[in-house]
């Protein structure tokens, strides 16, 4: 999981991403980004979130916590 912030930053086209970044305030927070995140989480972590779930995340940290939680289940 150590690369997850770098992977999310790449999708969002940011230099770097920290847990406190509010996703909706990112320039490229759109449906394509949501789908790209779903694809990346499925391929890299075997976690399958829905578009509605991803859209419902407030910060990058919330998203990472949700992925961690799913992996532990």
């Amino acid at each position, binding site marked *: 999981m150590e690369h997850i912030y770098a992977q999310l930053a790449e999708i969002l086209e940011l230099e770097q991403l920290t847990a406190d970044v509010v996703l909706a305030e990112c320039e*490229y927070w759109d449906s394509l980004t*949501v*789908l*790209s995140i779903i*694809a990346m989480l*499925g391929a890299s972590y075997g976690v*399958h979130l829905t*578009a509605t779930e991803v859209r419902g995340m407030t910060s990058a940290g919330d998203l990472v916590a949700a992925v961690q939680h799913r992996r532990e289940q």
Partner: protein
Amino acid sequence: MNFAFHGKRISGLLAIAPANESSFLDEMKNFDFPVNRSLKLKEVMGYDKHRLVQEGICVSDLAVYGMEYLFNRGVLDRDRIDALILVTQSPDHLMPPTSSIIQGRLNLQHDMFCVDINQGCAGFIVGLIEAFLLLEQPAIRQVVLVNADVLSRKTSPRDRNSYPLVGDAASITVVERSDDDCAIYANLKMDGTRREALMIPAGGMRMPATAATAVLQDVGDKNLRAKDHLCMDGSAVFNFVQVEVPPMIETLLAAAGVSMQSVDWFLFHQPNRFMLHKLADRMSIPYAKMPSNVVEQFGNSSGVTIPMVIASNLAARMLGEQFCACFAGFGVGLTWGSMLLSLGNMNFCELIDYPNESLQ
């Protein structure tokens, strides 16, 4: 709703794709998005090439070309067709039915049943169900199911939501009685409350096409389209597919008493590679059993995609082998349908090009 049919089979299948090809890389300049974002879309969705009709080509042109090809090859007899079902959402005219146009252009017998069905991405399932129902009649021994659409003509080239994935194509599926009594199972569901997720707003009686409905507009997402154009709520459609399709397949297989593992091929409608991979993930189906390569080569041709996936991946094997196949189609209506059947040992299975008009 569950269906079961006995003593029927698909005896032949022909897919027809326009030879005219367009590429996503060439079209990117028409979209009001940064190039790197469009390249990301290409990578995630699996967009690349798609086949589009040249100006003026209609559904009946593709269908007549394919039928004549089969007559000339001697694998279909024009005097033995008892019913012609055409499934399309882009008819030649509002009236007469395009199935009548095809019948007339081919000089088929008068003693037959022609019908148009307005269905989209579930149109192969709906068409097969209708074909099997007609075959219950003693007078009907052979049904020709034509799926055809030229929806590129109703899609805005400046709409990155829809244009990169749309493809034009036709297919001809011959359905007959069979001595093999092996059952065919189907499941179909509809939800008209979600009818606006995929629609062409103008051009019918509710909103006749006028100069105003042809004006391109940005509805706030940087995509330019007119009321005359196909409009898709991509997120709503994505959610619909992920929520409704897996339980439908479970219901279908349970009704048939067949396990997921004993299905050889999951031949699904082809909206884009991403959606198919997500469906496969959800149902724990290996990607190798669910081909997802139609959109990148031909585009999404609505109800024609299941015949396209068969003809472009399994044509040779459909002649001499028999498989346990699961079909699923899902889209406009909203409509979602699936079918489990024994598929193969066909008399013909082929993909041909509809030639480009010469520019003389």
